[in-house]
């Protein structure tokens, strides 16, 4: 048996990788230990969230599946940060844990070039530092030209509850025992990471009347750029907000020694942004209460996800903890909270294309690279799929820059800074977030999707039309003024808006607080669609800040253009701090800009490096 590209693992990274590789024309196999777990959501029942929602938009803009599938599979969707600026708005959908994987599987099964194989991969075949294939548990060999590993938490996965450790995946499935050893054999540094998930509660046992309702947004919203919303906003399911109390905290404090974390049973490093409840109570002991959310997992079964209550306490303590919560006094726990430890590689050992530095044509994506989250995984899967294809068709890899996409920030962070805890995307990681918005993902990235071959001519034409309309509306606003008539005055007054200085162009008027294009449209015979108006209005109202960001982008691109020769010998650069020298040696940044982002490399090291490069490499300039 042989394939051009093999993807190992059927999670969110694997699905996108398999989709991209096969749609780009390569004979692809997706090997998963269990077809039932394709696109499984073992943790929270949601897709998106701050920053993550923008990643899903980017995946869609590039031609990936996650956005499209999520739109068909949720029972609530919400625009987060709606009250804040447009740059930090982000979608989050409560996805149905049955529907989403089903819809994803359907998508994958409809792809001609793609085979889905149910098997456990235990080893990789490497010859002359190049990937040649995989070996299954039954010793069968499957040859390939490129391999994408998206193994999630299954590499030596261990489930932890209290002081008990059970080898296995999130649902108690078989784990991969030998693959991480194979990677170690090839020279990879393996690190142990940890993540956790909270309890699931039986719906009938919850007294929702004690909790506060959390509703979806009232207007129809979608991740994808091509199809309208296929749900009725008023019929969305509710989520609920509840709080911990002093009794909960007391139970936790008294039983701290029984928690795997505090009892010292855990070796993996957990994420700071997703602390267990015992962690929250120890670290923020002055807080009287912590928020928790109850979210439905599916329409097809009765489990509700208790977000914010993740813990590694033993079952009996978990019972006490849950029952101390208001509305959950009689709750039935259908699944206890657990922590999971797993092997990951050091992402400093992969390139920005997600190909590993050690083995040619071997790509890695998702949790194996040290990230956390469905969206982060999917984004890497998509890029690994595209770039494995590019490798085989002798094309340059697609590497998104930090000023182009959150996906660019994600991958650059991983391969430049590495990570010691599961990496989650945050808007604060993106220094250019004002231009990396939810609303402009297609304007930023569709052209790349089209160039790569994942976006159709029809989709691309739609983008071009949109760009044209945006330009048209901008021009209209620049070239027109508002005549003051009694109706205009009346309309302004009713909105509490001043009618002074009306000789300005409409563009100038839009800069004023409170004046929107929709409001001005009524005085002219124009009627642009919402997405066009949104783009133009943001570009006018926040022009000053967007220009500032572009200036910063220019600075970055200037540093980004300062290439560091691939053959540089850092031991010859005198006076570098030893930590900086070691880090530079390890990361081998391609540009000065990338070097500035390596932690442990200080500004003075960068000056020394720049001076060295000038002296050694630009002698003739």
């Amino acid at each position: 048996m042989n394939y051009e590209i093999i993807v190992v693992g059927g999670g969110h990274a694997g699905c996108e990788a398999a989709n991209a590789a096969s749609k780009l024309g390569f004979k692809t196999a997706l090997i998963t230990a269990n077809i039932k777990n394709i696109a499984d959501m073992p943790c929270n029942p949601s897709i998106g969230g701050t920053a993550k929602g923008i990643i899903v938009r980017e995946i869609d803009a590039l031609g990936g599946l996650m956005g499209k599938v999520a739109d068909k599979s949720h029972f609530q969707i919400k625009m987060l940060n709606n009250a804040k600026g447009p740059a930090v708005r982000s979608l989050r959908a409560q996805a149905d844990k049955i529907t989403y994987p089903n819809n994803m599987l359907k998508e994958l099964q409809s792809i001609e070039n793609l085979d889905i194989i149910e098997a456990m991969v235990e080893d990789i075949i490497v010859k002359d530092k190049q990937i040649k294939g995989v070996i299954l548990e039954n010793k069968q060999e499957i040859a390939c030209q490129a391999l994408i590993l998206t193994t999630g938490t299954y590499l030596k996965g261990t489930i932890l509850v209290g002081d008990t450790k059970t080898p296995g995946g999130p649902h108690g499935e078989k784990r991969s025992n030998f693959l991480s050893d194979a990677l170690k054999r090839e020279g990879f540094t393996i690190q142990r990471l940890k993540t956790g998930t909270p309890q699931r509660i039986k719906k009938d046992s919850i007294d929702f009347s004690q909790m506060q309702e959390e509703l979806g947004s009232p207007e129809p919203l979608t991740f994808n750029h091509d199809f309208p919303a296929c749900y009725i906003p008023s019929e969305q399911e509710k989520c609920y907000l509840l709080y911990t109390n002093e009794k909960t905290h007391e139970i936790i404090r008294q039983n701290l020694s029984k928690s795997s974390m505090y009892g010292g049973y855990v070796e993996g490093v957990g994420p700071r942004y997703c602390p267990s409840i015992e962690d929250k109570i120890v670290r923020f002991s002055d807080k009287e209460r912590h928020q928790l959310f109850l979210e439905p997992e599916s329409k097809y079964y009765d489990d509700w996800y208790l977000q914010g209550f993740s813990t590694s306490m033993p079952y009996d303590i978990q019972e006490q903890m849950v029952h101390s919560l208001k509305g959950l006094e009689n709750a039935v726990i259908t699944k206890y909270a657990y922590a999971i430890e797993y092997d990951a590689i050091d992402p400093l050992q992969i390139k920005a294309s997600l190909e590993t530095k050690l083995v040619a044509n071997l790509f890695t994506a998702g949790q194996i690279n040290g990230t956390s989250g469905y969206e982060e995984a999917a984004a890497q899967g998509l890029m690994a799929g595209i770039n494995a294809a590019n490798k085989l068709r002798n094309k340059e890899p697609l590497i998104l820059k930090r000023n182009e996409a959150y996906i660019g920030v994600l991958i650059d962070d991983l391969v430049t800074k590495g990570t010691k805890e599961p990496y989650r995307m945050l808007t604060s990681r993106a220094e250019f977030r004002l231009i990396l918005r939810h609303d402009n993902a297609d304007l930023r990235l569709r052209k790349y999707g089209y160039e790569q071959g994942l976006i159709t001519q029809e989709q691309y034409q739609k983008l071009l039309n949109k760009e044209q309309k945006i330009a048209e509306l901008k021009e209209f606003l620049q070239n027109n003024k508002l005549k003051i008539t009694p109706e205009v005055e009346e309309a302004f007054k009713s909105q509490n808006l001043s009618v002074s200085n009306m000789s300005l162009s409409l563009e100038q008027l839009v800069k004023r607080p409170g004046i929107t294009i929709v409001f001005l449209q009524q005085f002219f015979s124009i009627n642009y669609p919402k997405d066009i108006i949104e783009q133009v209005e943001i570009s006018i109202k926040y022009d000053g800040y967007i220009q500032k960001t572009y200036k910063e982008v220019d600075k970055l691109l200037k540093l980004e253009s300062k290439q560091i020769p691939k053959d540089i010998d850092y031991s010859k650069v005198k006076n570098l701090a030893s930590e900086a020298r070691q880090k530079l040696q390890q990361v081998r940044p391609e540009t000065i800009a990338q070097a500035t982002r390596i932690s442990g490399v200080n500004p003075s090291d960068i000056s020394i490096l720049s001076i060295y490069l000038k002296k050694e490499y630009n002698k003739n300039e």
Partner: protein
Amino acid sequence: MEDTICAISTSLGVGAISIVRLSGPEAIAITNKIYKGKDLTKVESHTINYGHIYENDKIIDEVLVSVMRAPKTFTTEDVVEINCHGGIASTNKILELLLTNGCRLAEPGEFTKRAFLNGRIDLIEAEAVSDIINAQTENSRSLAINQLTGELSRIIQNLRQEILSLMANIEVNIDFPEYEDAEEITHNVLKPKLKDIKAKLLEILNESNNSKIIKEGIDVAIIGRPNVGKSSILNSLLEENKAIVTNIAGTTRDIVEGSIILAGIKINFIDTAGIRKTEDLVEKIGVDKSLATIDKADLVILVLNNNEKLLPEDQELLTKIKKKKHIIFVNKCDLSSTLTLSEDIKNEIIRGNTIEPNGLNDLKKAIVEMFNLESFSQKDLTYLSNARQISLVKRAIKIIDEVEEQLNNEVPVDFLTVDIKNCWDLLGEIIGATYKDELIDELFSKFCLGK
């Protein structure tokens, strides 16, 4: 950075002793080649050695040579300092001998640059080194030394920390919008916080104006009609203080008649020759010059003659100095009084003559009080002290001004983070914590040769 550099690190011809400094791996060996005394390659580190510099068999100078081995030296390299007699000829000769024996002449600021690049000092400290070299009074020296020990760096770091935690809080609001654990930074919360940060920056800036006084002194113009006794007042002031009476270039690019030190601060008397010449040939030029002098001076002393009536020219000068810090000195009070002055300027007047010390002492006291000079020697001198640092703080303040304006325009907080981050970066530039590509080379090219 493997070569050995050398330079004369004292001002040529000024002191009785000149120092020629070397830094680099060959510093000791090269010196040893032209030195007779103990074998310098064998002496202990941080020792001073007596001997002679020779050219072939000819003695050039009698010298003390300090040998300091890496890494505990200013540049962290081997450093040698040759203390020789201060004549221009012999100092230059020693430099020349070092150059012919394998040293390279240091570029301006190269010793400090090496210290910085070798991680010995941070940027602000590097700048302080150049200040110490140029310091002329005890106060300015201690200001520079304070910077060298990192006091200012610490203050800026604290301020950056404050801005950083504000930014972190905003980021938490954005990334975890549904969590109540962090305070929501709304416009109303942001306003007082920014005001506070701005106040602290303004304080640093205000104090840096003081730092200008410490480093450069106070420029005083003595003006008045001819023959009211300006020159004799000046001479009495200068002679009594045994001050430098040669014409030396002042920092304001004016010709300074001479300087005295009052309460540790340099008082520079600016030449007002222009006014003296007004009655001669070039009347217009003279008037212009006097106006310009009044304009530039930190303090104007108008001298009037007690023995004469107030003339229209006096009246004119009285009007001109109104907007400036000024003192009216009524001279020749040992003679009979025919001068009448209006009551409202009574407090601005000091009376005296150049024969008895009392009046001039009152004048000096008035200057000390007017600029609160006593306070300088008591304060912790931790101010920003050069144009680069001051302009960075000014830019940071300007950014906060802009943010405050945008707050009124209802610009969302997440946009304002762009400015707040920028402010943080600017402060980082002061202490070299933010990487600026061209900064380093530009900075070091401005340093004086030698250090």
